[in-house]
């Protein structure tokens, strides 16, 4: 079953994580996944096995298919080939165990709901058809709001929030889902410094509690500090592994191609922190 795809065979040096002990079930297992938009492939032959308790940053240039990957992994997009398993089950059967933080701009913030209403949406998966959120669900929502320091805003209309506050609300909602595997699409985009710190603390806390997190991240210099595991993506998996093994000049160059501005920025960062990369 687990034949190496031609791509990974052609990149023998690509670091890949060993999937822990042989009996351990991956949180997310992706095999030979190909996604195309109008016959143009966006993702090609993706193979991935993420063990539990990892905080994975997904980095790559614009149009690398980062958001597409997490959407495809959740079953939101039709796959041209391949399959996805979540905790050893087909993704449709494991939706309850998946939490999702979409891009902040993907929703209309003028929608007539309060902060509390949005966080309660995270509980909907646990509620059956025709069931209203109960007292217990409200308590959980309050706790989650408190964790992101947004409890005082519980009754605010969502259009009165700043970008960072909106992102915190989305995170609180994801927390309220009480999932084991989280997909987050650019949670750091356009937030203030305080929110950024708050988010990263929260992500580390979740990881330490054994949750698995896959986070689309656009800012390469911070990626190195934030994530213990990196997935370098550019239509294919360029590299997937521990950050200190993957965050190298060669692999990043492979990922970003000729985008020199980003690369020189990275080289600067790598050089400054004494990383394992060879700095030109």
């Amino acid at each position: 079953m687990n034949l190496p795809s031609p791509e990974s065979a052609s990149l023998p040096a690509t670091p890949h994580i060993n999937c822990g002990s042989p009996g351990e079930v991956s949180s997310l297992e992706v095999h030979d996944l190909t996604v195309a938009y109008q016959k143009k492939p966006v993702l090609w032959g993706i193979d991935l096995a993420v063990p539990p308790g990892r905080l994975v940053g997904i980095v790559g240039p614009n149009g690398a298919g980062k958001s597409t990957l997490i959407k495809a992994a959740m079953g939101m997009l039709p796959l041209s080939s391949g399959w996805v398993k979540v905790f050893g089950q087909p993704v449709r059967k494991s939706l309850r165990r998946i939490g999702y933080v979409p891009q902040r701009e993907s929703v209309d913030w003028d929608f007539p709901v309060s902060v509390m209403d949005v966080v309660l949406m995270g509980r909907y998966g646990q509620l059956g058809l025709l069931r209203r959120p109960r007292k217990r669900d409200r308590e959980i929502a309050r706790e989650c709001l408190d964790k992101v320091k947004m409890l005082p805003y519980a009754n605010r209309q969502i259009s009165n929030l700043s970008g960072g506050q909106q992102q915190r609300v989305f995170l609180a909602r994801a927390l309220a889902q009480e999932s084991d595997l989280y997909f987050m699409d650019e949670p750091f985009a356009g937030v203030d410094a305080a929110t950024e710190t708050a988010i990263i603390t929260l992500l580390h806390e979740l990881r330490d509690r054994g949750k698995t997190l896959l986070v689309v991240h656009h800012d390469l210099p911070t990626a190195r500090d934030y994530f213990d595991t990196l997935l370098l993506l550019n239509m294919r998996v360029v590299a997937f592994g521990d950050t200190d093994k993957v965050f190298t000049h060669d692999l990043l160059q492979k990922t970003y191609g000729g985008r020199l501005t980003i690369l020189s920025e990275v080289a600067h960062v790598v050089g400054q922190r004494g990383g394992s990369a060879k700095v030109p």
Partner: protein
Amino acid sequence: MNQLIPPFDFERVFLAPWTQHFELTFWIVLMGFLVATACGLVGNYLILRRMALVGDAISHSILPGIAVAFLLANSRGTTPMFLGALAAGVATTILIEAIHKRSRVKQDAAIGIAFTSLFALGVILISLYASKVDLDQECVLYGEIGFVTPLTQPVVTVGGLTLGPVPVVRMAVVTLVTGLLIAMFYKELLVSSFDPALAFSLGINATVMHYALMCWLSVVVVSAFEAVGAILVIAMLILPGATAALLSQRLPVVLLLTVVNAALSATTGFHLATWLDCSIAGAMVVMAGVLFCLAWVFSPTQGLLPRQWQRTRTNTALSAPEWIH
């Protein structure tokens, strides 16, 4: 000399309809209220999903549905007309979605393409085959709310109890079911309107919700349509919801205000029509428009005037010397 506007007479405009023509007044106002409520409640979700014009499209594309149903069933019975119109409504939604998803055409243009083509098709069908019978586009598009009373309509009687004229009773059932459906699927409708991607990850199928909403929209439009005509239906899909959205930013309150707005529009519209002796449905829509303008100008949180006033106050506060030190 003829006066442009008839003189206003409180007795004639407000009292006489209820004291002397109660039978007429009651059923007409009730019908207006029911149509405005059902359309307004569904319309709220159309507005939230930025699909406000889909209702407009469906109410026009019903014409070919009715024509085809007439040709197939060879009668003007309510059931074939209803089914034909319903099928046309659902087909329109699917067509809009298909054009929009499978080409570069944007959704608003897709709506324009679908309903104008279907409407024109309906006009041709009717003028070709149905010219001998009393089925013309004016009659189909501009029903008259004045004819819903027991004087002109058969009456529904259940177990010896007279309920009311058929169109009103049918509309009452549709309105009640609309309210019930919204209460039952409140959270599914909410999350699939606000964040379809999250809905998916919660196991709520946003596509199913979309088509379910469109089907129910067709049911509402069709049942209102025959009796009161297109103007009232199209207007009430948008106006009450838009007005309510200016007054509150909490969905349950918005839904409640929609119902209040429906009652106000229907009642004041009826009296306006009595005063001016004009189209009742038209007057109800005009009043809904007036209520919207009032909310637009005076809404405490979002109105033009309160906001202007607040701005002036802030400016004054900013220029106050004790603030600057």
